[in-house]
């Protein structure tokens, strides 16, 4: 069978044991890969003791590639991580590109399951069959760039091929709740704070070198598909735009529609937006292109600020989300300061969305008198004060002073500040909303609300479909021309979740680079690589099961119907701009969505629905009384 390396690594940090277990191919076919496999393993590991703290040794961490990772096609370099989130307390996952996943496959592993916690800093060394935990005390305290450079150099002589490093920075070590994991200095598994999970486990980094090859089940068919897709890509304006300007291309398009949150979601239009846009980036900070493994789209850009207060050495540049989080959200039109804040986040290992959004929240509090310079270590946290924004990002990374308050995330910071600070929050389930405004596309409001990991535009494909970047003619719900407003969005969400779980969570296509693919092409690629014979109907069913699994896990950790609502900030209509007067009708959409998904009034998937999907383990955990009753009747 192609696509899979065929093995999983199990690493117990408590006793230092490393085991290699073969990947069961029937299990792989049933769950495809990525979070499909990751969530199943996670559930198996926690089902006997489902209540635990995210920053305890009891929290498993799972890194999974998909069958396409490393297959050499465009937009297939991605892989995923999952665990309980220390930021939200609910289900946490993140999806990332770069080179680490493909290298892991070439070393012979589809994923790594990490349990327990080490007593002192360790790193995991993988060189093909040689796998061991090593002392990482000398790297502890180093930033992401220094750790990446040091491990790459220190382990090169012991490796068959040059290695890839996945590491946390000082933020992860200090358990900043939105710390992330970074490969190659700029490819971040950003959201939900899983870098802090590593910090709590004292796992500093994983180094992987691999000399193997990935088998492709049907190479000739894959070659033909590559040829077909070459024309599709050449014809795609979406691909051209991200190739030329990277994801910040959205600043030019998103502002027209009102998709970009400005001033902590209080505006949707701004005279100074062009200072942050692609033209300004090209003029002031652009320093060349980068790419993920084998991807010719090459949407990643480098940045450099040669002089001035925000001098930044050449390195991975800010993505759209980062430009918006530190730029528009903070009313900061200085793109050089955004480049600097981005570099700080990359070095310390911080999620730029949560970091920028949390600083914007703090500015809002400061401007309204809830905070003074006494609390903020002397920093004037004012709209557009780029120096203060950059300084606060660094304080968060260091977990020091007022930065240590914000390092717990905006929800905890609001509790600390009090005085009604929660009115400025932009979180759903404790996760700061990404930089896309549901007042523009109402279906995205529902997507934010019901996303298992909290406010997220990538938890399904609603953003891509409703926003227009993806068009899937084989699925009527993903091809309809919906009228403006909230009607029809529940149905859209359900289909986008099912297809999205298959597309970007299990097979792990990149939502950006693979946007031009229709469903026929996506399923064909999966079949050509694996040799399986999936149908669209089958992958939709798998996607549906994975969605319920993630939803159920977040329910298991305490999320209920009240947590599916949007914060007041996102539900406040704006007086001007492209989205003037528009807010999603959450009650209408949620009611329809709950009915379609078979969720009860509490927001839990009904027991019968879970059992029908083959999720009996999850049903037993969510409905322990029912399980007990069943056991009792058996005994009788």
């Amino acid at each position, binding site marked *: 069978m192609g696509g899979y390396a065929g093995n999983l690594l199990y690493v117990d940090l408590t006793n230092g044991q490393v085991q290699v277990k073969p990947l069961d191919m029937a299990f792989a076919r049933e769950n495809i890969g990525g979070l499909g496999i990751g969530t199943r393993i996670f559930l198996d590991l926690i089902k006997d003791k489902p209540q635990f703290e995210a920053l305890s040794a009891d929290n498993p961490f799972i890194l999974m590639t998909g069958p396409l990772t490393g297959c050499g096609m465009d937009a297939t370099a991605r892989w995923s991580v999952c665990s309980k989130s220390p930021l939200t307390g609910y289900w946490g996952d993140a999806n990332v590109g770069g080179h680490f996943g493909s290298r892991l496959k070439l070393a012979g592993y589809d994923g790594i399951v990490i349990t327990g916690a080490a007593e002192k800093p360790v790193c995991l060394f993988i060189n093909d069959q040689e796998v061991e935990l090593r002392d990482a005390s000398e790297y502890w305290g180093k930033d992401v760039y220094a750790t990446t450079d040091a491990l790459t150099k220190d382990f090169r002589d012991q490796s068959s091929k040059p290695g890839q490093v996945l590491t946390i920075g000082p933020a992860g070590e200090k358990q900043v709740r939105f710390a992330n994991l970074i490969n190659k200095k700029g490819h971040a598994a950003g959201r939900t704070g899983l870098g802090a999970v590593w910090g709590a486990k004292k796992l500093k980094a994983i180094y992987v070198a691999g000399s193997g090859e990935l088998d492709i089940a049907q190479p000739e068919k894959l070659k033909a598909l590559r040829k077909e897709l070459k024309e599709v890509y050449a014809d795609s304006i979406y691909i051209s735009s991200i190739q030329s*300007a990277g994801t910040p291309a959205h600043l030019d*398009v998103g502002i027209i529609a009102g998709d970009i949150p400005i001033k902590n979601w209080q505006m949707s239009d701004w005279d100074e937006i062009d200072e942050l846009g692609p033209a300004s980036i090209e003029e002031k900070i652009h320093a060349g292109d980068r790419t993920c493994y084998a991807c010719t789209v090459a949407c990643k850009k480098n940045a450099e600020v040669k002089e001035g207060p925000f001098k930044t050495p050449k390195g991975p540049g800010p993505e759209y989300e980062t430009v918006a989080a530190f730029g528009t959200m903070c009313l900061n039109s200085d793109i050089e300061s955004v480049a600097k804040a981005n570099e700080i986040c990359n070095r310390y290992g911080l999620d730029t969305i949560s970091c920028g959004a949390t600083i914007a929240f703090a500015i809002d509090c400061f401007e309204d008198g809830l905070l003074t310079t006494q609390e903020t270590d002397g920093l004037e946290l004012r709209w557009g004060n780029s120096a203060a924004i950059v300084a606060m990002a660094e304080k968060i990374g260091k977990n020091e002073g007022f930065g240590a308050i914000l390092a717990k995330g905006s929800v905890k910071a609001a509790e600390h500040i009090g005085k009604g600070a929660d009115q400025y929050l932009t979180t759903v389930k404790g996760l700061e909303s990404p930089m896309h405004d549901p007042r523009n596309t109402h279906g995205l409001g529902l997507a934010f609300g019901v996303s298992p990991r909290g406010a997220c535009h990538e938890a399904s494909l609603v953003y891509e479909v409703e926003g227009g970047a993806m068009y899937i003619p084989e699925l009527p719900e993903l091809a309809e021309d919906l009228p403006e407003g909230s009607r029809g969005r529940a149905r859209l969400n359900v289909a986008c979740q099912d297809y999205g779980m298959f597309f970007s969570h299990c097979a792990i296509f990149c939502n950006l680079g693979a946007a031009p693919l229709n469903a026929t092409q996506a399923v064909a690629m999966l079949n050509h690589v694996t040799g399986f014979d999936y149908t669209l109907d089958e992958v939709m069913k798998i996607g549906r099961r994975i969605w319920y699994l993630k939803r159920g896990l977040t329910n298991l950790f305490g999320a209920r119907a009240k947590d599916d609502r949007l914060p007041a900030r996102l539900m406040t209509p704006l007086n001007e701009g492209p989205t003037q007067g528009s807010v999603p009708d959450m009650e209408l959409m949620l009611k329809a969505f709950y009915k379609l998904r078979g969720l009860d009034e509490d927001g839990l998937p009904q027991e019968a629905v879970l059992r029908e999907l083959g999720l009996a383990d999850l049903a037993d955990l969510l409905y322990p009384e029912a399980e007990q009753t069943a056991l009792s009747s058996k005994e009788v």
Partner: protein
Amino acid sequence: MSVFESREIFKEVIVGFFNLLGDTPLVADKLMASKMVIRFIYSDPDLAVVVDCSGDAMDVRPDDTDTKALVEMSMKADIAHKFWFGKVNLTMALTRRQMVAKGPIPKILKLLPAIKPSYAMYPKYLDENGYSQYNIH
């Protein structure tokens, strides 16, 4: 049924609006800086319009099918009408090929910030020039 009853009416409306953009420095200065020659190819009703920014002033030439244009934008007249109201999801229109662009895409996209003020101008232009029946605002 299309918004504009005839080719003549659509030509009057769209050419008049392009000329207004050419007379508005806030928009025209940035378009002129691009030095681009763009041909808009409309259907239903059919019309070709060249917007030439290569000279000293913006030149709008209806029915010009001969000039070599760097960029060609094809769309239905109704889509163009909605676009100037800012009511077209540009990403979706391009993905679903309701708008087809040919030419150097990065250069085309760079024009978006330049034309942003025109969305507010279009409904006003329709009202002030006797075309208020087409104003969907």
